[in-house]
């Protein structure tokens, strides 16, 4: 059991008991190994089901705008990236800070389930962790692996593991990672020729089935009607045409420009293992370089593309 699990359960019980919040959004144990199921604890008994593990990679902030029936406050377990998306929600008028009771969770990174699955020819039957060691079993073999080597790629470059906004903390803050080159992956693509880039993204998106799990797992995507679903005008064709598929991915990325916290939920949710962060990462890099901006750090600031400053960079205008 992860050391955070018991703390979370106790904190949640306390929060619910004292009425600091009416519900607590967290994870419960999944039905299959390496799965965690987003779950809302409404009473102290429910709170016993809350867990924590390195597989809780989805972004719980995603569930906040959907909660309509709640008189009191909503409690939520928030790791670094979740908290940044909560900030974004507050900035974008999705929820009031006063409506929230945030249980901050200093995060040590989430694991890349698909990478781990590749170590096995058959299905994984058990997963557990002890500190930095992950113990993974299948019918045929057992592996003990170092968690740091199997972190999700966004967790590897994360510099905001600690929550940026919270009412109480699950544990002491953890040390933030110092990343030498935040955007090595983006630079690799930037160095390609136009043709190589085009082919790279062709290959990247070729298996997309347009289930929109990436969009739906993303806390930023809360529009009542998404542009892909609009019929008048129909911005994107609905078939499996590669240009339509790519258009969807481009536009989704644009809509996240300056707002994306690189939480990795999109990639985590993709059934086809498409590395969709390759789109948003570029915009994150640009936001940082052009506007010195990282999303979701300050509830008093709108993202750079929502505002105009006379000294905004304008080198692209010729």
């Amino acid at each position, binding site marked *: 059991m992860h050391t955070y699990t018991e703390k979370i359960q106790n904190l949640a019980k306390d929060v619910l008991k004292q009425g600091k919040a009416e519900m607590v959004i967290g994870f419960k144990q999944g039905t299959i190994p390496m*799965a965690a199921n*987003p779950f809302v604890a409404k009473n102290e008994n429910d709170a016993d089901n809350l867990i924590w593990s390195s597989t809780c990679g989805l972004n719980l902030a995603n*569930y906040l705008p959907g909660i309509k029936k709640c008189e009191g406050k909503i409690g939520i377990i928030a790791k670094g990236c979740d908290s940044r998306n909560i900030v974004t929600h507050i900035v974008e008028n999705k929820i009031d800070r006063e409506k929230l009771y945030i249980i901050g969770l200093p995060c040590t990174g989430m694991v890349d389930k698909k990478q781990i699955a590749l170590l096995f020819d058959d299905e994984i039957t058990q997963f557990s962790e002890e500190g930095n060691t992950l113990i993974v079993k299948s019918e045929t073999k057992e592996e003990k692996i170092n968690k740091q080597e199997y972190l999700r790629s966004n967790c590897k470059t994360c510099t905001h593991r600690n929550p940026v906004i919270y009412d109480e903390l699950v544990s002491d803050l953890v040390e933030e990672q110092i990343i030498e080159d935040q955007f090595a992956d983006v630079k690799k693509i930037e160095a390609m020729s136009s043709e190589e880039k085009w082919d790279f993204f062709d290959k990247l998106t070729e298996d997309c089935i347009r289930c929109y*799990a990436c969009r*739906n*797992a993303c806390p930023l995507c809360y529009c009542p009607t998404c542009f892909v679903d609009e019929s008048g005008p129909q911005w994107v064709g609905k078939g499996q045409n590669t240009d339509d598929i790519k258009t969807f991915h481009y536009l989704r990325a644009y809509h996240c420009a300056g707002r994306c916290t690189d939480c990795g939920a999109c990639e*985590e*949710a993709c*059934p086809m*293992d498409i590395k969709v962060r390759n789109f948003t990462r570029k915009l994150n890099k640009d936001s940082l370089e052009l506007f010195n901006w990282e999303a979701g750090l300050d509830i008093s600031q709108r993202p750079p593309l929502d505002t105009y400053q006379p000294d905004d960079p304008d080198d692209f205008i010729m």
Partner: protein
Amino acid sequence: MKIIKIDKKEWEQGLDKSRKEYHLFGAVKDKDYYLIQALGDKVYPDMESSDTILSPKSVIFPQTEKMLTANLDEAQDNHHIMERVETDYSPRAVLGIKPYDAKAFKILQLNFDTEEFKDPYFCDAYAATTLVGLAVNNPGQFDFSTSVDTGPFDETDLDVLLIDTGNEYLAKVITDKGENFISKCGFDNQTDEKNALETISKLKKKAEKAIVSTVSHDKLNGKTILELYNAPFWDDIAFSCINCGTCTYVCPTCWCFDIQDETKDKSCIRFRNWDTCMSRLFTEHASGHNPREGKTQRVRQRFMHKLKYFPDKYDQGLMCVGCGRCVKHCPVNIDIREICEQMNS
């Protein structure tokens, strides 16, 4: 029934022979996962493969399928007249399909190929397709096919069932289609039926025993629709759902589709796409009214359809073959087995 023994060393040669007449499909590993693909020259299916992410239903019922075209050029005589798209329906064979995936076609037929209605695209594709199954000797932990009237050696809707016995395959030739394919491959080493069946039976028992995952649905039939519909658990089940369509897209039995027209300049095509009941758009009316506005209604619809409406309407068991793909790929771990248990209890 004929049982043919195929030495694995001769397998690929046989396939190459069949290519003269058949387009071959099978599981291929590209990147880190398996997909069903049309096999190019010198490409052979990976018969050791675990499940493909998507089921083989796309071979007969593609995600996007052109149906009709029209030209809008008023200078031409046939303008604005919809004409069926010419599609290649020459014979094709799907190799190594899992028995539960084959069974799923039986379920799809209930929708596309009935006395009353025949979907020409589905029927023509189905008629052209030979399904060469491979019995599952080592079922994975998601496989709960035995609980839903299928099983690792199920022969429903297969034309040929291959059984892997180590160095060779035993091929149970089930239909004429299967017979034709096997003969086109040049596999003709007919084996003693009794011995073979015994081997198969042993393997089958072993495989069925290896299935750890089960689900009970015995009481569903006795419950009324309204009782289940109004059950208290739907909100909790639906809470974590993000309404992506993953479960419906990976499902071998989900058959819903949506028709779209696209026009450019003087040409127009009408095509259909897989649709998903997880999408709000699925039921949205032109008026803006939506009978399944909330995600609870949508989640409930999916499970009620698979586990209650379908069985009630067709009396053909559940609309589920137990492949476990939706369990494995759901990003938030909504598990049909658990829900079925809840509905059954």
